[in-house]
């Protein structure tokens, strides 16, 4: 694992897999959107509006997943002091923030025709809003600190403190009486969605995942380039 702490070695790996993740992202979205918009049935109750699910559900899954990724990366940084781990968490945070915002907005737009309201303060929506705030706080802490190592360590601690929200989000629909529907995919007894809708959903989830990987690698490369620049400037000013 520490092999890839060397930025040059990481760059070789990144450059090797980047075209693949980028291609698979395009392919995934192409296929997924085709299936979602054209090759899947309308819902018997919701009609065509159900197709927002193919944007909303992957965004919400990724919002939680990216935070777990950040928490794991932060833990790796704190325990093993792997330098790229903290940068990976830093790079992932804005992507997760956008996914969370997308989940909230698409969910809100879906809620208006389905529930009759843009917003309701039930457990699921509230806990995802808290996730949005946690992302914002994490990003703000990175920017507030001047020393890069201190920023990495304090942000890692913050990410780990906030991870307690993730099980709350996941189980909020079971622990409380919520307007948001209960779990339909990751539950005991298997998914309750028919395969005609499950296929486009999984395609979209895969597309979102590859999108995350591609943008993460871009951002990590950007972070490493910035560090290199700062080092050059520091040495020039001596």
């Amino acid at each position, binding site marked *: 694992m520490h092999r890839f702490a060397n930025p040059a070695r990481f760059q070789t790996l990144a450059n090797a897999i980047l075209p693949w993740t980028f291609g698979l992202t395009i392919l995934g979205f192409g296929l997924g959107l085709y299936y979602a918009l054209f090759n899947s049935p309308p819902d018997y109750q919701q009609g065509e509006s159900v197709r927002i699910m193919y944007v909303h559900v992957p965004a919400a899954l990724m919002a939680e997943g990216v935070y777990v990724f950040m928490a794991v990366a932060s833990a790796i940084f704190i325990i093993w002091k792997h330098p790229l781990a903290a940068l990976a968490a830093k790079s992932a945070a804005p992507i997760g923030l956008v996914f969370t915002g997308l989940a909230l907005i698409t969910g809100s737009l879906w809620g208006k025709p389905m529930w009759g309201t843009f917003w309701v303060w039930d457990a699921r929506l509230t806990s995802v809003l808290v996730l949005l705030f946690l992302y*914002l*706080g994490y990003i703000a802490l990175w920017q507030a600190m001047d020393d890069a190592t201190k920023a990495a360590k304090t942000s890692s*601690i913050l990410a780990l403190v906030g991870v307690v*929200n993730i099980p709350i989000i996941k189980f909020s629909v079971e622990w409380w009486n919520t307007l948001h529907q209960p779990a339909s995919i990751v539950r005991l007894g298997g998914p309750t969605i028919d395969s005609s809708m499950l296929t486009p959903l999984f395609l979209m989830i895969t597309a979102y995942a590859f999108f995350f990987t591609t943008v993460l690698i871009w951002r990590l490369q950007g972070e490493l380039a910035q560090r290199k620049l700062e080092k050059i400037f520091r040495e020039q000013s001596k």
Partner: protein
Amino acid sequence: MNSFLTLLHRETLGSWRQGGSASMVVIFYFMTVSLFPFGVGPDSQLLATIGGGIVWVAALLAAIVSLDRMFALDVEDGSMDLLVLTPMPLELLVATKALAHWLNNLGPVIVITPVLTLFFNLSGEGFTTLMLTMVLGTPALSFIGAIGAALTASLKRGGVIIPLLVLPLYIPTLIFGAGAITEALNGSAVETSSLLYLAAISTFSIALGPVAAAAALRVTME
């Protein structure tokens, strides 16, 4: 035990002297609560319904306002370097400071709350639940806040970012605290479970908050 008491004594003296936060916090709390009737109108029925929530939000804000003094002042003038060198474990140091914060800043807030319930026409049942939630839930505010204070201890303008870090972590406490009062006012019996959850959050944060905050302090003290 001796160092724990000495530190507690030092923090208490510091809070109540000139330049300490305790008196400012309780006045801020009083004023914030008084603002809401101006904002929402004097309808006493409405105020009785939302009174518990307003008092809780104001207590939250009062806790946050005094958080940046917990560690930053000591880091600035170098006393934190000395405190870290004592045989006292850093987790105990953080816990003592958080306890001192609760006693000196939130203690007066709790004491003055009965007066404020007059503003909101809060009934007997709602009043007792409010006081119970404040006693059970405000320790969580100090101990979770200690994490935010420790993370930003070395920043020049740390006070500005502390609300951003700490408010998402406060939200469960607020939900259960204000929720218990609403349930009590509606006459339902489920307020006990909200109170138990509130006590659980407080216990959890008293146990684990100092661990996270001590880790953060070690980073800032390097």
